[in-house]
């Protein structure tokens, strides 16, 4: 299936207008010896054959419609109301480009403006951008922003070591040697390491191990040293957890996937980014603002574009161009559809069911909960055997996808499993998991 409307007659007429005899003549600028390569690709097929093949490929995956899944670690299985995809599938949203021409893009622009507002509401910050690629790149951009705010006068970044490992790795890739990235394993260590070369402190809450961190205290330390604080948060937690903006964060970023975006093996997701008014001109990414038309009617436009690469080029705050527009729309529709009440409820379901699970698992003889600290919907279980083996047994014998094997991320944690619970994990599923673990420990 090729999506080309031309008939032979049209092709001929067009070539005549162009003034060439054959299409090939239009490619004469290309060195002849590399023209028309023979590509080893599958033979063309029709739509009905393609869908059959893709269905088959998708069936090679273990499908977990009914499989209980306790895997989180940065991407979560939440219920996505049917309205979300209904709106996303509207061609007017799906097949528009970035809203460069505001007069014919008010749909996209207003939706992003609403998205920015909802992100401000959740995080308690003043301004948010139109999105980054994901949580990890949003954090990397936060680091770059902090460095730019200090214009080279502060070049250290202090990262609490329970930030998601992918985020840390991404930040390192982005920053290369533009900054020194140091770790701190506790607020005490942070206090020791912070100095007047520290541009940014990064803390995640709930952290990679699921624990709620006291952002306020970290903010105090950062502020005390004249540095900024970036908080990485799980947006679903913000249905019941204090807004980081109310705890003194200067920048709040995170992964927006839980807000109505399917897991899809890791992407496309949504990086959200919010900060204080005073930093708005250093914030990267697209921003939508209110405007008036020549009759004085209110509308929306992309604004502050002088920060961006297409205007400022090598002096831009970032190179980002295409972002996660449709994913931001998904989050907007999701948050609108759930509303205050529904969103709070999802947050509570995650919290209370996770605590129920932790208690039940903690009560087992050979399993224990690794940290006795407040958490949101994820917690670390210490297993009697390697987490990898526990997971294998869970999958093979009970059809359960277990938690993250922390041995994959952190050395010495081979017996630790990071268990995530969402509203999709019914009490029954949790009880199943607990029974399964019990049997495993007895075996």
């Amino acid at each position, binding site marked *: 299936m*090729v999506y*080309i409307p031309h008939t032979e007659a049209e092709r001929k007429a067009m070539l005549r*207008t*162009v003034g*060439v005899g054959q299409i090939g003549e239009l490619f004469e*600028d290309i*060195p002849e010896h590399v023209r*028309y390569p023979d*590509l080893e*690709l599958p*033979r063309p097929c029709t739509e009905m054959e*393609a869908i059959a093949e*893709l269905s088959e490929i*998708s*069936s*090679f995956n*273990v499908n*977990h419609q009914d499989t209980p899944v306790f895997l989180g670690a940065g*991407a979560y*299985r939440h219920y996505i109301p049917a309205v979300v995809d209904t*709106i996303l599938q509207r061609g007017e*949203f799906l097949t*528009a*480009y*970035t809203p*460069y021409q*505001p*007069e*014919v893009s008010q*749909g996209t622009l*207003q939706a992003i403006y609403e998205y920015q*507002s909802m992100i401000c*509401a959740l995080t308690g910050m003043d301004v948010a951008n139109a999105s980054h690629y994901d949580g990890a*790149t949003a954090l990397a951009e936060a680091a770059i922003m902090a460095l730019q705010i200090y214009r080279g006068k502060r070049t250290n970044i202090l990262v609490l070591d329970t930030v998601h490992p*992918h985020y840390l790795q*991404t930040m390192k*890739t982005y920053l*290369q040697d533009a900054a020194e990235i140091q770790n701190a394993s506790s607020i005490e260590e942070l206090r020791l390491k912070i100095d007047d070369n520290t541009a940014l402190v990064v803390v995640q809450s709930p952290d990679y191990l699921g624990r709620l961190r006291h952002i306020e205290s970290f903010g105090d330390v950062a502020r005390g040293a004249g540095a900024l604080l970036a908080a990485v948060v799980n947006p679903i937690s913000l249905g019941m957890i204090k807004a980081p903006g109310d705890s003194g964060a200067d920048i709040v970023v995170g992964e927006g996937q839980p807000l109505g975006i399917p897991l899809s*093996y890791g*992407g*496309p*997701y949504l990086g959200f980014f919010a900060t204080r*008014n005073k930093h*708005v001109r250093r914030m990267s990414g697209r921003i939508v*603002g209110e405007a*008036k038309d020549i009759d004085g009617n209110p509308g*929306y436009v992309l604004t*502050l574009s002088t920060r961006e690469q297409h205007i*400022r*080029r090598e002096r*831009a705050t970032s190179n980002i161009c*295409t*972002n996660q527009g*449709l994913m931001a729309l998904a989050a907007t529709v999701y948050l*609108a559809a759930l509303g205050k*009440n*529904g969103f709070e409820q999802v947050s509570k379901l995650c919290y*209370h069911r996770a605590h129920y699970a932790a208690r039940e698992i903690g009560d087992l003889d050979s399993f224990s909960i690794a940290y006795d600290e*407040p958490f949101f919907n994820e917690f670390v279980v210490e297993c009697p055997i390697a987490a990898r083996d526990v997971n294998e047994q869970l999958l093979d014998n009970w059809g359960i996808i277990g938690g993250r094997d922390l041995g994959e991320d952190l050395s010495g944690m081979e017996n630790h499993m990071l268990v995530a619970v969402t*509203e999709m994990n019914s009490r029954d599923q949790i009880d199943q998991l607990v029974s399964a673990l019990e049997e495993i420990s007895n075996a």
Partner: protein
Amino acid sequence: MLEPLIYDLGVAGRRGVKYPAIDVPETPLPDEFKRNELNLPEVSESDVVRHFTRLSTLNYSIDRGFYPLGSCTMKYNPRINEMTARLAGFTRSHPLQPDETVQGNLFLMYYLQEWLKEIGGFAAVSLQPAAGAHGELAGILMIRAYHQDRGDLKRDRILIPDSAHGTNPATTTMSGFRAVQIPSDERGNIDLEKLRDLCDETTAGLMITNPSTLGLFEEQIEEIVELVHSCGGLVYGDGANMNALLGITRPGDLGFDVMHYNLHKTFSTPHGGGGPGSGPVGVSERLAPFIPGPIVIPEWNSDDHDTGSGSDNDIPWYRLAMPEKSIGRLKSFHGHFGVFIRAYTYIRQLGMEGLRRVAEHAVLNANYLQARVSELLPLPYGDRSCMHEFVAEGHLENSDVRALDISKRLIDYGFHPPTNYFPLIVHEALMIEPTETESKEALDAFVEALARIIDEAKQNPELLLTAPHNAPIRRLDEVQAAKQLVLCCWARPEVE
């Protein structure tokens, strides 16, 4: 107001989608973590559907009509892609699931890697980058890593033609290099003499867009690559314009060391009003060890994995792996898998022959349009045949009318405007890219509208200067918006 803000709909206490009640013993949240206020909309599901349905109708989109936005390759987005990308087996899989439970995903990613290698003539491909600019970052960081790996530490400059997209210089700076601009010559090519002067032992590489943003194929591309290579630099190709070259020539064969693809342009995945994109990078042998990971590799001699693909020895087993000297991770997880499915679906249907036909017709359409527009507007490089797009100058003699005015007036005629004011080296640029999926009658209708607009510009310029007249809203004041920032439904930041 075209449509109220979602925050201005509904009333306090109204509920939308409902969730089950808490069915487990509750655990109190420590006070210090408690939230006091949650300012989210309180609307019904019907309010939501109506609000976003009405908003959507304020947009122009490919689904409504011709969208010749240069450099953006606004081709038809096949609906089959949306169906395959939504297959439950794909959408439900968690990125950290064990490899043996996601062999379908890995199979698809592996073949997409292979196909992109083949299409671009590269030795390796990483699907990680999230968009074109992200691919650029990956590419320039690889060039950096390559030189550093060889201990060649003096190279701190990236050469970039003046016609380049803004992401190229921005990427260069982000990657810790200095961007050095190369002028274009009167035929729209890179000025070869200037390039020769700039190539030296501090040159890390060249970032080139070929066909360029002028829609022109570099006439001395082989000399250019040779010049850069011979001074020890590498060549980065911005693949945004790959639609012109599919099955016609391969950047790898031209000597490019690295190039990003824009799956959301060339490979038909929708733009979604600004994203998501996907910007895989292809590289030559020497950069292969440095590509960002994880990538998918096959293994043939696995023994005890139980998978949908069986344990037959002929059938490989796929797994994620981090290349040897990888520049590392560019984001969490493994790239925009949902976009990969769409691109796979597209390439799978077209095959080599279909891809070549895409490029041929994209270029035919652009040349046809160029020939017809040449009678209406000045074309700075109108003497050359163009590739998939071309640039016109949107101004008229003795007239106040500018490219922007023509663009806004095109809206009144039911068309999306071309790209405005880019590339920067063309006065009042109107960059026009029709793509292969547009029919002759669509192009003819566009030319006819343009002809009428140019006539109007002479008879009644006011009509253009105050356009659009037939859009959901009149012309918006972007300058004032940037001064008087209002970025959130309730917060009112200070005036500048």
